[in-house]
């Protein structure tokens, strides 16, 4: 009995000393590393979300402007631009209902038409919680000229230089 208690009593100070190794550089470094990982990941994820959304809206604006200037009738031009932009956003995995399409200009020969597509990007998206921290609107504008020599439009091709 005495021998057994002697065996169990001796190693304790050694184990205590062993577990302190790396403590000074360890505990706070774990917290610091976790903080850096968390903040860094959020910053990079936000930046990537904005870049990705910008790619999508740039594509949508380009397709929208192209569809507008190639529309068969002035009354159908805006719908064509909307549909083309929505199709791009859908193909990019975005919700077209959240997109805003603004068209300036009209479908007439030589007319300069601008299509602006805006899309809100949540600044923080967490699993199970959803979006938090507000959102940022990503916007892109594409300008195109209506072909003065195209068919289907009234008037003559007389663009002012």
């Amino acid at each position, binding site marked *: 009995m005495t021998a057994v208690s002697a065996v169990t009593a001796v190693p304790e100070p050694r184990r205590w*000393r*062993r577990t302190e*190794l*790396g*403590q000074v*550089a*360890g505990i706070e*470094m*774990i917290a*610091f*590393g*976790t903080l*850096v*990982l968390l903040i*860094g*990941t959020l*910053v*990079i994820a936000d*930046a*990537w979300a904005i*870049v*990705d959304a*910008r*790619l999508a809206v*740039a594509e949508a*604006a*380009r397709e929208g*402007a192209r569809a507008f200037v190639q529309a068969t009738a002035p009354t159908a031009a805006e719908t064509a631009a909307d549909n083309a932009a929505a199709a791009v956003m859908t193909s990019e995995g975005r919700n077209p209902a959240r997109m805003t399409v603004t068209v300036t200009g009209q479908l007439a020969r*030589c007319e*300069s038409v*601008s299509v*602006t597509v805006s899309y809100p990007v949540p600044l923080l998206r967490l699993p199970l919680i959803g979006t938090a921290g507000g959102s940022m609107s990503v*916007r*892109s*504008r*594409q*300008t*195109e*000229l209506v*072909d*003065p*020599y195209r068919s289907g439009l009234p008037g003559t*091709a007389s*663009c002012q*230089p």
Partner: protein
Amino acid sequence: MTAGSAKGRSEEGRSEKGSALMLMPAAVLIVVVLGALVVDNATVWLGQRELGTAAAAAATDAASAVYDPAFYQSGQVVLDPARAVTVALRSVAAQDLSGVQLTGAPTVEVQGRQVCVTLTGVVRPILGRAIPGFGESRSVHARAVATVAGDSGSAVAPRGLC
């Protein structure tokens, strides 16, 4: 306090136990920096695409500057160089180039019924500015050609101008 115990303590001081904890923040920093580089490279790619889109739109718009007298008198399809350059420059100015900054004036070349627009710009990194050595602006170039359709007119090889 014997020589043996002093030696043991000295070995404990040199021990590598716990060094993995020091490596963790370093590894995390490396991952974050690599992520930042990925985002910045994507930004440069986005800027290049924007510049390419602007050049394509400008070339397409400039291709509408057909020289009317030649077309209506002889059916020849040629571009009016002065008007094509004006239209192209106006088109570039109307584009929304928020991700890229143009450096220098756009170059517009017109030959026959073909027009070539060349743009050069710089893209500034978003996250790389915080990392020493990665904050430099990247130069991007874009070039687009548009050829007016038509059977009659000066023959230009496809993309022969640029």
